[in-house]
């Protein structure tokens, strides 16, 4: 069949940017098609900035930001957001921590008030700290300790690939570190990283720009100015020899494996990075993709397979160093070596023979759908624009992503595939300790 290229559409969300005197950067992106808004506050601190001996602290601190603030009691934040018909959450990433709400648009001022109040000062009490350490321990039990494949591979692969504490440590944290955290640690972390100059506020959806600007200024204008701390250099050299390790997961019924290769700097070399984002999809998106066709359908050496950029699957909101990851679950008694060898073989084949007719265009069309679907939700827009502003000063890039993905060439994808050599690979194998 001849390749017919679907035209890649784009969004045209307007973007208004400004910076308050205290250094807070603001992004507004109006869209009045539904009476809802998304509000996101992103702080430029994440797992990589945790002090040694304080694994899991960035995430623990995220919990503490919900425990009351200058004018609000514990529980008030939740009640005020939900009592306005909204939903909320926060999440901790390698390079940032976000706080967000989706609300009916009549709650705009309330949301700004709530975010400004905790930006001025969360209530950091011993009681709340002890309570949230307990809650976080239960979160870790649910997501890691009490379930098969817990933390695979986002917690288990970085220590294979990286050597320095910022990149290699467990971002969920050890129970020992969590339990020994103090209120003073939290206060210090807040003072250093939760500065107005280290934050971005984004509001999307049913807003009037002039009115929203006025409200943002009213509520955030007197947040005390503190400059952003200097971000350390987290760079690590690339691997020059393959690294492999394995561990037994007592609950896992089947073997699994994940492999990763370093990729170009997503921020300073975006053009060099994008082909890897496309490559991951060429390899793994659906039954017509390279590795699914080969490993799942033809060889039957794996039962499921995924591929993505960034340890948290966040191609456009992560900084260097990061990686392209492939992960697979194998059938009982599956041969991990064979799977890795086949992946190497397919990467070679792609690098040498190139793509088939239409393979790239259809992958790009599907990527466009995924990107557009994510931005359809007001919150998806606010969050992504906030991080794009923070890491690149370029929130409008969100509108450009489908097109830029569509402009990646076959040559670039081939060249990217050619760099994924076994000697640059870090891999981790899960041995099924729970096989029956």
């Amino acid at each position, binding site marked *: 069949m001849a390749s017919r290229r679907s035209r890649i559409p784009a969004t045209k969300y307007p973007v208004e940017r400004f910076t308050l005197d205290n250094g807070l950067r603001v992004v507004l992106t109006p869209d009045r098609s539904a009476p809802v808004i998304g509000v996101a506050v992103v702080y430029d601190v994440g797992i990589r900035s945790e002090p040694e001996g304080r694994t899991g602290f960035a995430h623990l601190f995220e919990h503490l930001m919900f425990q009351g603030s200058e004018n609000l009691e514990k529980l008030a934040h939740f009640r*005020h957001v939900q009592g306005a018909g909204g939903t909320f959450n926060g999440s901790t990433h390698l390079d940032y921590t976000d706080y967000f709400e989706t609300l009916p648009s009549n709650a705009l001022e309330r949301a700004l008030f709530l975010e400004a109040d905790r930006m001025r000062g969360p209530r950091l009490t011993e009681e709340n700290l002890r309570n949230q350490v307990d809650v976080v321990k239960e979160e870790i039990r649910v997501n890691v300790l009490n379930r098969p494949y817990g933390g695979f591979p986002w917690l288990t692969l970085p220590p294979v690939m990286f050597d320095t504490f910022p990149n290699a440590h467990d971002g969920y944290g050890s129970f020992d570190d969590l339990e020994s955290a103090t209120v003073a640690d939290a206060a210090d972390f807040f003072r250093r990283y939760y500065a107005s100059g280290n934050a971005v506020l984004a509001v999307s959806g049913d807003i009037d720009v002039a009115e929203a600007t006025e409200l943002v200024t009213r509520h955030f204008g007197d947040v005390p100015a503190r400059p952003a701390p200097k971000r350390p250099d987290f760079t690590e050299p690339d691997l020059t020899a393959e690294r492999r390790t394995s561990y037994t997961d007592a609950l896992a019924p089947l073997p699994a494996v994940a492999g990763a290769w370093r990729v170009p700097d997503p921020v300073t070399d975006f053009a060099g990075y994008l082909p890897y984002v496309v490559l991951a999809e060429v390899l793994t998106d659906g039954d017509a993709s390279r590795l699914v066709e080969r490993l799942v359908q033809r060889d039957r050496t794996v039962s499921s397979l995924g591929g993505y950029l960034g340890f948290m699957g966040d191609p456009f909101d992560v900084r260097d160093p990061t990686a392209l990851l492939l992960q697979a679950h194998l059938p009982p008694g599956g041969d991990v070596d064979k799977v890795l060898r086949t992946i190497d073989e397919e990467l070679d084949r792609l690098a040498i023979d190139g793509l088939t007719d*239409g393979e790239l265009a259809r992958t790009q069309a*599907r990527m466009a*759908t995924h990107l557009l679907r994510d931005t359809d939700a007001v919150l998806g827009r606010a969050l992504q624009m906030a991080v794009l502003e923070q890491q690149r000063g370029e929130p409008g890039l969100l509108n450009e992503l489908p097109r830029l993905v569509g402009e990646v060439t076959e040559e670039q994808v081939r060249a990217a595939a050619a760099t994924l050599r076994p000697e640059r690979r870090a891999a981790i194998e899960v041995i099924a300790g729970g096989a029956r």
Partner: protein
Amino acid sequence: MTTTTTPAGPRTLPPLGPTRKLKVPKQAERTLRNGLTVIAVRRPAVPLVEMRLWVPFGRVHLARGAMLSQTMLSGTESMTSVQIAAELQKVGGGLSAGVDPDRLMLSGAGLVTGLDRMLELLAEVLTSASYPSDEVATERDRLVDRIQVAQSQPAHLAREALLKRIYGRHPYATQTPEPGQIRAVRPAALRTLHSERVHPAGAQLVLVGDVQPEKALDAAERALGGWAGAGRTAELPATPPLEPGPLLLVDRPGSVQSSLRIALPAVSRTDPDHAPLQLANLIFGGYFSSRWVENIREDKGYTYGPHSGIEHSVAGSVLVAAAEVATEVTGPALLETTYELGRLASLPPKPEELEQARQYALGTLQLGMSTQAGLAALTSAYAGNGLRLDFLAEYAARLAKASIDDVAQAAARYLAPARAAIVVLGDAERVTPGLAALTTVRTEPVS
């Protein structure tokens, strides 16, 4: 305590602006000659279209149903699985199939410029899925692997035990087939099942996105008008009433947490009690600012994500409360849970608690409708239960007018702990004493 303060001193929470009335988007509907109902809703925010096809699928053989959904996209008379996937990809599209005891669901999304092509491919699969032996064999093994992984997950095991406990001999009681049953499924059985049960009569196709509804209906009629075939339909019996009884403790030695599941009676969306019950549920445990979450998470730190919600199925509704709690506090967590249920069932809620829950219920209706995917899911769930989107307005009105008395009565009727069926999955040796101090416990090994 460390708190930063700013010179402005205490500030007060700004009031909410005027509420925007719930606007139900326009929809168009047509029932084709073959019995397929097509519903199209316009939401042009992004140049995409969402697709949901609901085919009634009650009383289908469990393993064959699961395998049918796993292999339906594995090939047709003229296309291989790779060709189907590639052709969908070309228009930015994708399709996936899933089953539950009520329905077979084909879901997808793609660039709106590809709507015709996606519908053609959907029709191709519906009318000539061929269940090729090789692909069926591959998918059989994959499904067995997936079931094995599911069976190692506490949430899945707790769910299985709960369903058995509350549904007894009803078809809803078992929803995951055993690996052995999957291995016995042959392609011929899938072709038979497809011809018997995958037919347009009674099915609903929902299209939501950047489309003119009438044009979308025309496109669907062109593509799917030729989907023929009539076969068996099957009605599910109503679900049995919930039988309270001893707590069922499922022993999973070595668990570092216990999975607590509590089932309570509930009513369908159209029942007059539904809106008050929904509000009572929110106040109990249905959202973060609920009594249960504030108690066992924010006060006591027993758990991370407790939640309760009403599950609507075609044959009945049930309210389920779920929490994963630390092993050492399993008994105390149950105590607090029963306390909160009992307190709400026997004392009316405070007016401000009700207003907060009401605003949340009304606000999240707006949020749920604000994306194409959200609208598609809602429209399809409604359609599968015989409702249309305009029911949203009626439901919002019911939420708006439910009084404290209405909510208190619903809580007394449905949330009373005496009516609960309770299942706990955890390390029996460690949690039995704490649970047995509160209620009668019956222990079973994990399946």
